[in-house]
């Protein structure tokens, strides 16, 4: 077994924290660019999602990666398979992270369609004291367009003579 292959096998173990580099292995990493890139890639994969997905368990991610690497090593012991898998895991983690926790920008309304949107429920205590006839009337008028000026609680000074007449009529009967 060449030193590069041996290090390839050691990388997942060290990445998961179950072992540490020996001095001679560190020396090899310093002189072998291929092994060093492989190690850097695994380290980079481990850090993906940091600060963006707090619920992503780094240890779990590493162990999944290590398991995948072990399976892969049985069929292809060359380092390209490791690189491919690490890259795939990285891309998957990136997509997952981006999908789940990218913050939404204020002011921008979502245009994404969600096929299974749960029904919204908004309790309306204002309805509690109303009689069926009032509720029925409300059901009929609730979708009609509202003049926003009607929501402004006008004072008497804001009313025209017809409106003042109506107020007087309503008070005097």
């Amino acid at each position, binding site marked *: 077994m060449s030193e590069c292959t041996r290090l390839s096998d050691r990388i997942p173990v060290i990445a998961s924290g179950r072992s540490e580099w020996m001095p001679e292995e560190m020396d090899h990493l310093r002189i072998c660019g291929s092994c060093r890139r492989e190690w850097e890639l695994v380290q980079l994969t481990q850090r993906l999602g940091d600060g963006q997905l707090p619920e992503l368990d780094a240890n779990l991610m590493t162990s999944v990666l290590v398991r995948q690497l072990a399976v892969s090593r049985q069929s292809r012991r060359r380092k390209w398979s490791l690189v491919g898998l690490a890259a795939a895991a990285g891309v998957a983690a990136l997509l997952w992270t981006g999908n789940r926790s990218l913050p*939404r*920008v*204020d*002011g*921008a*309304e*979502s*245009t*994404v369609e*969600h096929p*299974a*949107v*749960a*029904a*919204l*429920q*908004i*309790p*309306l*205590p*204002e*309805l*509690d*004291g*109303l*009689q*069926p*006839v*009032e*509720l*029925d*009337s*409300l*059901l009929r*008028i*609730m*979708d009609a367009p*509202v003049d*926003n000026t*009607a*929501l402004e609680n006008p004072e008497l000074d804001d009313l025209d003579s017809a409106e003042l007449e109506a107020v007087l009529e*309503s*008070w005097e*009967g």
Partner: protein
Amino acid sequence: MRTDYLWLIGLMLFWASPAAAQRQRQDSAGAVQADSLRHRIEERFASRVQERLGLTSDQTAKLRATSQTFGARRRELHDRERRLREALSRQLQPGIAAQPDSVARLTDALIELKQQSAQVARDEMKEVARYLNPVQRARLFMMREQFSHRVKQAHGRHWMGRRHKHKDRSWM
């Protein structure tokens, strides 16, 4: 003791009478109808909110949770307000001398309640600002305002109709 029995018998006869039974049935049917209408209105309002705000499933779930929490608080305040208003109306009935202490206490309580309602609305809007953008939040606020306006309109129409019919001026 004998008087108590007579009361009891009288009460039983009253409840057993066909007129009372019919009234009970009508009340019960009215309550079922009111519940059904309330449910339809809440459902339609929620559906309009979901549609006009363009909520994502995540926002829907969060707004649902917020609405449940604050809805319970608003319902409690609303019930208290209704009880206070009823008590105040009883005190202010024409031809009956009002008790100044009670009237003062009830009026203060109503004003305090208005402040509490405003605080609940403020807290709720602060909470929704965590997951709705400013435009969505403003739309929700406006829709709530418009809905309250509609409730007053519906209540007012019914009340005005009754007042014209019965010339009831006890509210003045």
